[in-house]
C-alpha cells in the first residue's frame, strides 16, 4: 500500500516547490483501488478513476474546455499472430508475425472522439488511441512497428478487442464539473495479473497541457495465490500432490460406490 502514499506525496512535493510554471494547469488523479485482488469469484471489475484539473488565479481561460485521454497499459508479453491458409483442402497456420512485448491489456478512454481532441500528428506522437499505440513486430531480427493497416496488426488488435482486453471508448471520461472528471477502467475476468500503467493526459485547444502517470496492481489472493505460487515455484511437489489427489479421489469413489 505504499504506491498511493508515494504518488500523493509526490503531488504535494511538486506543489510545494512549484516545479510547474505558475499559471499552468495541474492534473491530480486518484484510483478507487491501487491493488485489485482476484479471488475465486472474480468475474471482472470496474476500476474508477477520479481526477481534477487544478487552476490558479493566473491560469488563462480555456474557451474550448478541457479534454482527457486515459491510457491503461497492462503487463507486456510477446505474442505470435498466425494466419491460416488453405493448403490441399485443409486450413493450416501458414504465416506468422511476432509482436514483441505487446501490452496484454490496453484501454484508451477519452472524453470526446480522439480526432477532435488532437491533430493526427499529435495523436501519433503521443500514441493516443489503438491505431497509434506502438506494437513493434520482430521482422527477421529487426524490431519495428508497421503501417496501421497491416493485416496482422489489425487482426491482433481485433482479437484482443474480442477478448475484452483492448478497447477504445470515446465518451468514457465524464466531466462532473468543468474541472472534475471521472472514468471507469473495465477489467475483464481474464485480465492478466501484474502491473498496469495508467497515463492521464489533459488537452485544451488541441495541445497537451498536463500529464499524470500512476499504476495499479492486479494480483491473486488467498487460495488462488497459494495454488498459482505452488504451481510456478514448486512444480514437482505440486504435480505429486495433484497426482496424489487423483488417486485419493479414485480410491474414495471405489469405496463409496463399492457394491460387493
Amino acid at each position, binding site marked *: 500500500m505504499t504506491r498511493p502514499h508515494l504518488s500523493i506525496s509526490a503531488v504535494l512535493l511538486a506543489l510545494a516547490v512549484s516545479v510547474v510554471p505558475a499559471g499552468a494547469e495541474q492534473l491530480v488523479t486518484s484510483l478507487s483501488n491501487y491493488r485489485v485482488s482476484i479471488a*475465486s469469484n472474480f468475474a471482472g471489475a470496474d476500476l474508477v478513476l477520479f481526477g481534477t484539473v487544478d487552476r490558479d488565479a493566473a491560469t488563462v481561460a480555456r474557451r474550448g474546455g478541457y479534454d482527457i485521454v486515459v491510457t491503461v497499459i497492462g503487463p507486456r508479453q510477446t505474442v505470435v499472430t498466425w494466419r491460416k491458409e488453405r493448403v490441399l483442402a485443409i486450413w493450416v497456420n501458414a504465416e506468422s508475425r511476432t509482436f514483441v512485448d505487446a501490452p496484454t491489456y490496453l484501454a484508451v478512454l477519452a472524453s470526446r472522439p480522439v480526432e477532435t481532441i488532437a491533430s493526427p500528428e499529435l495523436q501519433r506522437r503521443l500514441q493516443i488511441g489503438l491505431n497509434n499505440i506502438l506494437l513493434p513486430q520482430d521482422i527477421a531480427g529487426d524490431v519495428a512497428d508497421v503501417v496501421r493497416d497491416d493485416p496482422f496488426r489489425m487482426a491482433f488488435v481485433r482479437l484482443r478487442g474480442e477478448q475484452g482486453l483492448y478497447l477504445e471508448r470515446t465518451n468514457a471520461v465524464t466531466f462532473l464539473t468543468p474541472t472534475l472528471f471521472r472514468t471507469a477502467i473495465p477489467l475483464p475476468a481474464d485480465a492478466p495479473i501484474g502491473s498496469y500503467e495508467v497515463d492521464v493526459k489533459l488537452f485544451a485547444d488541441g495541445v497537451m497541457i498536463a500529464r499524470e502517470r500512476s499504476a495499479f496492481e492486479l494480483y491473486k489472493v488467498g*487460495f*488462488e495465490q497459494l495454488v498459482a505460487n505452488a504451481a510456478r515455484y514448486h512444480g*514437482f511437489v505440486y504435480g505429486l500432490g*495433484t497426482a496424489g*489427489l487423483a488417486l485419493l479421489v479414485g480410491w474414495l469413489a471405489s469405496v463409496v460406490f463399492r457394491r460387493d
Partner: protein
Amino acid sequence: MTPVQIYLPIAELPVNVLLIFVMGLAVGFISGMFGIGGGFLMTPLLIFVGIAPAVAVASVTSHIAASSFTGAITYWRRRALDPALALMLLVGGILGTSAGVWLFSLLRAIGQLDLTIGLSYLVLLGTVGSLMVAESVRAIIRARQGKPAEIRRGGSHTWIHGLPFKLRFKQSKIYVSTIPVWGIGFFIGFIGAVMGIGGGFLLVPMLIYLLRVPTSIVIGTSMMLTLVTMALATIMHAATNHLVDVVLALILMVGGVTGAQFGARAGQKIRSEQLRLLLGLLVLAVGLRFAFGLVVRPDELFTLRSVEGVT
C-alpha cells in the same frame, strides 16, 4: 439457479462449476460404460469451453488418472487384470510419453500443434471409429440371424508371434515377444502425450487383436497402464510446463468418477456388440468434428499465441 462461477488459478479464467462438473459427469458416464479413460472427449470439450489447449491437456491427465484408478481397483478385486503385462507395456509407455512431450513442445514452438492434433484425431478416430462400427454392425447382423458369435481363434498365429524375446504372461494366458508389447506401450504413451488422451480406446482393441489377450483381462490391464502413464504425465506437466490446474482437475475428477459408476452399471445392461457400435459411432463423430474444423473455412483466420506463459 444462478451459475456458480469459480476462478481457475492456472487457466486464469472464471468458469461455471456446474458446467465443468456436468462435463466430468457425462464423460465419466461414457468412460465407465465403455471402460475407457475418456480423454479424447474431455480434452476437446475443455478447449471448446475456452480453456487453453495446453492447460486442458495437462489437467485432463490427472482426471484420467483418477477415473482409471477407480476402474483398476474394481478389476483388481475381481483379479481381472494382468500386472506383469501392464508392467511390460509401461516400459514402452514411459519412453513413448517422453518422446511425445518432446514433439509436443517442438510443434508448439513452430505453430503447428493445433493442425497436428486435428489431423491425428481425424486419422486415428476416423480409422478406429469406422473399423469399430463395421465390426459391430457385422456382429449384430450375425446375432440377428441366429448364428453363433465369432469365436476367438486361439490357435491362429500371426507374424507377431514369430518375434524373439518371448515371455509368458500367466494371467493373460499368452506367450508372446516383448517387442510388440513395448511397441504398443510406446505408441499409446506417445499419442497420449501429443493428443492429450489416455488411449484406452486404442489399447483395448490392440491387446485383443494383436496380442490376443483375453477380453476379461483387457480392460483392467489397460486401466492399470493408463493410471500410471497419466499420473506420471500429470507430474511431468506440472514440473516442466506448470500448466496443471488442480481446481479444474478436482472438479473433473469428482464428476468423472461419479459418472463412471453409473456408466459402468448402464454398460452392463447393454449387449457388448451394441456397446461397441455406440462407442464406434462416438469415436467417429469426434473424428468427423475435427475433419469439419480442418476443411471448413474458419470464421477467424488469425490466432494469437503468447510466447511465454499462458493466455
